[in-house]
């Protein structure tokens, strides 16, 4: 870890501000954000809708220019680059994972994974072999020639993850990667991203509302009104009824019992707990915090 910290960050934002509109109609979507992501690090950015998460991800992914500040990807300042160089940066250094998968529906799973390699002019045979290996590692070895319409949500997202790492980028940006997945698939994809970060040394930034994903994060950041702050372990608790991770500030409610405060994901959980607290505290109260 020490080496990773002294190495060049895979992503660095310095005092980045993005303003939409001008004059009195100007809205600061992101304001003075600074952030550094090291290789092998998983950072989750959370925040309410409209807080600037997507804007920040777009800027980090060289899809949107900031109004001010600078962005460094793999040691290169990208906000001074032209369109062509930005495309190359996205192609070589950044992988994207989207909430709605965004696979190309006319291409099979293996062809979707081959797309970034084709764009990067990797020889076809090599690209096919690499895509085949990637999908096999992702547990999709039997689904290579299936079209997206023939895959489940979890399978689609695994293909999307395969596509994101196809060109061996240092940075992966994921927008709500578990947002459209059931609990099991969501957990699988979250673990997959963590493994990729740890085993392949990639920096991963995940924007999400999904509390389950906090478990895989090295750091959790909170973006609100365009400003970023680091969350501490005290910001979270586990709902003793449904065992969901709850952000204390966003909890549906709390219940004090035997000098402990418990936070709940929903009012239903709160009600159930209030009626029979001991039932949910067998083996002692559930530890609050991360």
């Amino acid at each position, binding site marked *: 870890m020490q080496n990773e910290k002294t190495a060049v960050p895979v992503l660095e934002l310095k005092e980045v501000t993005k303003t939409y509109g001008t004059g009195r109609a100007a809205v600061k979507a992101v304001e003075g954000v600074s952030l550094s992501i090291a290789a092998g690090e998983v950072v989750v950015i959370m925040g309410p809708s409209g807080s600037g998460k997507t804007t920040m991800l777009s800027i980090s992914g060289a*899809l949107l220019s900031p109004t001010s500040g600078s962005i460094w990807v793999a040691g290169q300042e990208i906000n001074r680059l032209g369109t062509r160089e930005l495309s190359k*940066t996205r192609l070589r250094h950044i992988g994207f994972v989207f909430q709605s998968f965004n696979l*190309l529906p006319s291409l099979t799973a293996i*062809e979707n994974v081959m797309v*970034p390699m084709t764009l990067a002019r990797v020889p076809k045979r090599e690209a096919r072999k690499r895509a085949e290996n990637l999908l096999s590692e992702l547990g999709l070895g039997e689904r290579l020639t299936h079209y997206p319409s023939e895959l489940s949500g979890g399978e689609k997202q695994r293909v999307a993850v395969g596509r994101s790492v196809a060109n061996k980028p240092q940075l992966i940006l994921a927008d709500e990667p578990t947002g459209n997945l059931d609990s099991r698939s969501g957990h699988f994809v979250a673990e997959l991203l963590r493994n990729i970060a740890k085993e392949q040394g990639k920096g991963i930034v995940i924007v999400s509302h999904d509390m389950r994903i906090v478990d895989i994060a090295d750091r959790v950041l909170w973006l609100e009104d365009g400003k970023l702050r680091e969350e501490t372990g005290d910001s979270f608790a586990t709902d003793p009824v449904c065992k969901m991770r709850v952000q204390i500030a966003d909890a549906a409610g709390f219940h004090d019992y035997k000098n402990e405060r418990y936070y709940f994901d929903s009012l239903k959980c709160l009600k159930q707990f209030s009626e029979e607290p001991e039932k949910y505290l067998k083996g002692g109260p559930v530890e609050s915090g991360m």
Partner: protein
Amino acid sequence: MIRFAWKSLWLEKTRLALSTGGIALAILVILLIEGVFAGVEEQATAYIDKGKADLFVMQEGVANLHMASSFLPPAIENGINDIEGVKKAVGITYSNTTAEIGGNRIFSYVIGFDPQETIGGPWKKVKGTQDISPDEVVLDKIIAAQNGVGLGDEIKVMGRSFKIAGLSQDTFSIVSSITFLRKATVAELNQRPNSINYVLVETEAGSDPRSVARRIEKRFKVNAMTQEEFSQSDRLMIRKMGIDIILAMSFISLVIGLAVIGMTLYTATLDRFRDYGVLKAVGASRFQLYTTVAVQSLVTALLGFVAGLLLAYLSKFAVTAIFPELLIVLPIRAVIEAFVAILIISVLATIIPVRLIEAVDPMVVFEGA
């Protein structure tokens, strides 16, 4: 990316069929109107184009058959026959007039010909006879059918009655059909019994009609034009007259058709906007995006073009079967022009959406399903 472009195109067959169908219909309209226009021109100059004459000799200063008057002395016919390179020179008489047929007044070119000669008269087999007497007429068969007359019936030409002895083919025109009388009869009707109006010249094999024309003009004070020159001159005259409307229709149909094609391709491209947005996010260069969109537009356009061309040829036969008076000609020139136009439109319909994709809002790829 070509593979993606190709597969993406065929993924949604209904959309492809609609795009191709829209383009095919636009091509059909363009080619049919162009075909009608070309047909009208061909019908209007049929007498010049279909007969065997290589040269047409007329009064000096005259350059047309349509809406023109030319008078020549009868002796000139023999004089031209003596010129080097002339195989045969035959005089005809001629008038632009109206004929009363079945109670209707029909505008007509009245040609006075010599039934014994091989040029000057009907060029296709006539139903009945073309060896007519001074009181007989050869009438176009479509005009006859349209006006409810047939062989043995009478029509009036320049106030005089004639019995229909023959029905000619390929002599109909919506501009002016051709009616054949004997040469001397037309001269009498023109009240110039000893004159001829044009001389039709067949040239010797191997001789250059243009050189022969120059020799005729050198010897006599006349205008001698080759078949191509005379035909072109009449087509120009016809365009300057009422056919401008058809030309305007043809132009408008071309513009509307091309606009339909452009909109179809533009819409088809926008329908795949999200896919292009994904490609852009993943790192596709501007060139790669252009190539992808261009392949899809061009394949769609070419499929539509081929389908439109087939439809146009099928419609040509269907329309002429229903409306025999309409001649639809699909000249190669019009087909090539439509092809080039569609290529240009395809490129334009590619450039505009790709420019939009270049400025794609990142939300396109980040927004949830």
